[in-house]
């Protein structure tokens, strides 16, 4: 073999297709017929209710190579993984395997609570193909990774469930295979077991010979030779990982955004009113658009240049007007302003921050002056015009300078007598963020252009005097923390656990579901009204949060205030919906940048009354 010869193929999948029946009963009837049929069926003749879920999928994995298939949930990744490992039978195409193939997947594969830990490790490794001569060594490694070596003879029913979480996954990882199919990339999680599993997975990925199915570009191994984008069972794009990853991120962003727009349209009842539906671009068109977008990601450089020119110039600088969500202000805009100050130093000419809600404290030390939007227009005008801005733009984020922004900027210039002031509008950061969320600008740009600093001025508590210690909470429902029985239970538990220890101030951002009637708390729970009643309501809410001994609330929005006021914070989420993952990544950076304050984010399903209580007790100590 010369150096130019390709490595031998371990796995060859050639135009594989798979048909599923959408209806269960009908599917069973077809299954019985197919089982008893002599010969194979033809996929070009679909029966009623059947659909092609995988269309002519082809991939080759060679010795030492890693190939990645990226696809959103429901795109067919798991089905292909099952086809390649023989769990399902392809309806068309050809699969050739050279050697042993393993499926790396978590779950509770074959788990039975009446087995001992060792017995289960034997079963799990054996299911994954461990030969008898290596089985004991594999099991020992599984117990070592999962930290269960000292509990090998204990029945699973007597081991805490959380300790069993990685048993199956670890079993899949340790069994020697020639080629592995990863249904998701293991890793993530802060506990030692998750880290050991992640390390073992990385070792496996470094060796190559892996086909990796993933719904996200996060956590992919560095040595990927080829990547593909799968959507609705069809390969939309393939190429090098460096090219495919940003295109996929852009694609996911566009698809989700289009779905959100469609949902909003339905909520508004547009369909009922006969308004034609917004034509959603085809996935192929979105991929094409993303490919073009890769060449146009110079926005980050332009923004840096714009900020540098304005800050280094002699004229006054207006920062704002900021009109959008509190959470975005604290996660993105204020840190960006702090970066400007840190990067370019203090200015002799004025720097005027313009925002709403009387939150001048947030810009103390960053700007020389603060002007509130409600100094320029009455509160009701602001609320109405801001709603119009959001409705017209289709998003709360300030990605463009609107007429309302211009009117406010004119008002600031007039008020301060600075007609030649340079404007650094929030659209600067949100346009870059948009590119980051599309995947056309690296996420590291944000970390490099943000300074997370606590708010220097700490306002007093809600009563502006000597108040007894209290804790704060703020809950509302959104796509990442949907209104469900479980989440309502969590709100109940949080308020209950908090109020048993200290009085609770609930900061209502405008969607608080209310204090559950079952909580017999007397005077222990007080609710601060939502913004909109007065122009300083946001400041009042900030005061309530800043004075608290601890804070628990829905991830995002006003909950983001708490860590900046050095208040131990626990934010919760239910689903990784919308831009949650992007915002959560920034929240982690904040937690790292503010070492003196505890800032945790947890999934609602991982929290119960006991864990909540333990967290509160810990931070109140």
């Amino acid at each position, binding site marked *: 073999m010369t150096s130019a010869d390709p490595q031998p193929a371990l796995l060859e999948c050639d135009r594989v297709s798979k048909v599923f029946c959408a209806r269960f009963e009908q599917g069973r009837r077809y299954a*019985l017929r197919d089982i008893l049929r002599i010969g194979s069926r033809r996929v070009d003749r679909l029966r009623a209710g059947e659909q092609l879920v995988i269309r002519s999928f082809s991939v080759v994995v060679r010795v030492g190579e890693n190939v990645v298939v990226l696809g959103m949930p429901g795109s067919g990744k798991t089905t292909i993984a099952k086809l390649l490992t*023989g769990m399902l039978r392809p309806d068309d195409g050809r699969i050739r395997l050279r050697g042993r193939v393993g*499926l790396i*997947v978590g779950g509770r594969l*074959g788990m039975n609570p009446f087995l001992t830990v060792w017995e289960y490790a034997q079963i799990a490794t054996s299911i994954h193909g461990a030969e008898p001569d290596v*089985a004991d060594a594999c099991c020992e490694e599984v117990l070592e990774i999962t930290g269960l070596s000292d509990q090998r003879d204990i029945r699973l029913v007597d081991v805490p469930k959380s300790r069993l979480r990685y048993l199956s996954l670890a079993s899949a990882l340790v069994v020697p295979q020639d080629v592995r199919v990863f249904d998701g990339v293991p890793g993530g999680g802060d506990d030692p077991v998750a880290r050991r599993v992640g390390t073992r997975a990385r070792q496996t990925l470094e060796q190559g010979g892996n086909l990796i199915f993933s719904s996200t570009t996060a956590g992919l191994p560095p040595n990927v030779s080829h990547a593909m984008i799968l959507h609705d069972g069809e390969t939309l794009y393939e190429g090098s990982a460096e090219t495919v990853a940003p295109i996929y991120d852009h694609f996911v962003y566009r698809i989700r955004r289009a779905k959100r727009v469609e949902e909003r349209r339905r909520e508004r009842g547009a369909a009922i009113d006969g308004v034609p539906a917004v034509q959603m671009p085809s996935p192929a068109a979105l991929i094409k658009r993303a490919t073009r977008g890769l060449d146009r990601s110079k926005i980050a450089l332009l923004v840096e240049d714009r900020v540098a020119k304005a800050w280094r110039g002699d004229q006054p600088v207006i920062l704002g007007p900021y009109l959008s969500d509190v959470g975005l202000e604290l996660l993105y805009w204020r840190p960006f302003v702090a970066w400007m100050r840190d990067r370019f130093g203090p200015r002799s000419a004025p720097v005027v921050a313009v925002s709403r809600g009387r939150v001048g404290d947030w810009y103390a030390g960053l700007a020389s002056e603060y002007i509130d939007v409600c100094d320029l227009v009455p509160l009701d005008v602001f609320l109405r015009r801001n709603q119009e801005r959001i409705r017209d733009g289709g998003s709360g984020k300030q990605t463009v300078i609107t007429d309302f922004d211009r009117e406010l900027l004119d008002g600031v210039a007039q008020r301060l007598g600075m007609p030649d002031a340079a404007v650094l509008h929030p659209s600067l950061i949100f346009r870059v963020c948009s590119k980051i969320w599309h995947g056309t600008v690296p996420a590291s740009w944000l970390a490099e252009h943000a300074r997370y600093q606590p708010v220097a001025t700490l306002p007093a508590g809600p009563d502006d005097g000597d108040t007894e210690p209290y804790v704060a909470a703020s809950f509302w429902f959104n796509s990442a923390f949907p209104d469900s029985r479980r989440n309502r239970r969590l709100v109940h538990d949080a308020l209950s656990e908090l109020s048993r220890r200290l009085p609770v101030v609930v900061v209502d951002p405008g969607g608080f579901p209310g204090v559950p009637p079952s909580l017999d708390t007397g005077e222990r729970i007080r609710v601060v009204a939502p913004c909109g009643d007065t122009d300083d309501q946001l400041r009042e809410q900030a005061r309530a949060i800043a004075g608290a001994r601890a804070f628990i609330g829905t991830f995002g929005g006003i909950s983001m205030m708490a860590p900046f006021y050095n208040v131990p914070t626990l934010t919760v989420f239910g689903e990784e919906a919308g831009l949650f993952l992007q915002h959560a990544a920034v929240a982690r950076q904040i937690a790292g940048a503010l070492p003196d304050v505890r800032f945790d984010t947890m999934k609602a399903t991982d929290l119960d009354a006991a864990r909540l209580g333990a967290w509160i007790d810990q931070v109140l100590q």
Partner: protein
Amino acid sequence: MSPVAYQRSGARPSFRHLVTLGRLLFLRDFRFRYRQAFLGYLWAVARPLMAVLPLILVGSAFGLGGDMSTAEYALFALSGFLMWQVFWDAVIAPQWIARRLRRTFTEGPLRPEAVIAAGAGLVLFNTMFYSAIFIAAYVITRTVPPATFPLGLLAFPVILLGGLTIGAFFVPLTFVYLDFRFGLPLLSPALLWTAPIIYAAPDGGLLAVVNRWNPLTYLINIPRQWLVQGATDDDALFLVCASVFAVLFLLTLRFFRRAMPMAVQSLPH
């Protein structure tokens, strides 16, 4: 349209792996089945024993053993029934085990053949207890084993294979429709009573014809004769029957491997 193919070359899971996996899955099933039973594994023996005792008593009273003495008939009927039970266990066991592994099949790369291996493990385990009962019956009836006794022992794997052949055929079907599982036990009395298992084979009449057409007559009755009475005139038919079941087993295995992924696909996810 290219032909469908799933080809493997190079190293592949060994037969030892299959046996080990089957043993582990049997263990898993066993632990689960008797998890809340105080008497535990005793139930595995008690059920067939309690089923056969009344049959022996009633059969003896009604003269099902022909000209056999009560002790001879007891040993005859018990041995026949236990061999039948081995056969029937082999039919049912793969389904019991497969039903409890449905989720595992949908979640991980479980070799389908392991279900048959685990079923065989369950049958062998039960056979140990049946053998103990059988030996006890020899002692109680003071019977001296005939010279053909070792042949009777050698027939056990064939009976097991015969049961597994039918059982393996039905496993994928029960994944799709439970009716096959519910319907299969209805077949049990028909098979049991149409073969001379707990009664002496009649010399003529309709029952003799029916006996002749039931393969269990050769699969069970002839080895049973080897165990308790000695050689028969039809011994060669056992070899024919064993060969047929061996071929059928290979065909069923081929069908089973092809059908299981389709059956798994039909399971609700």
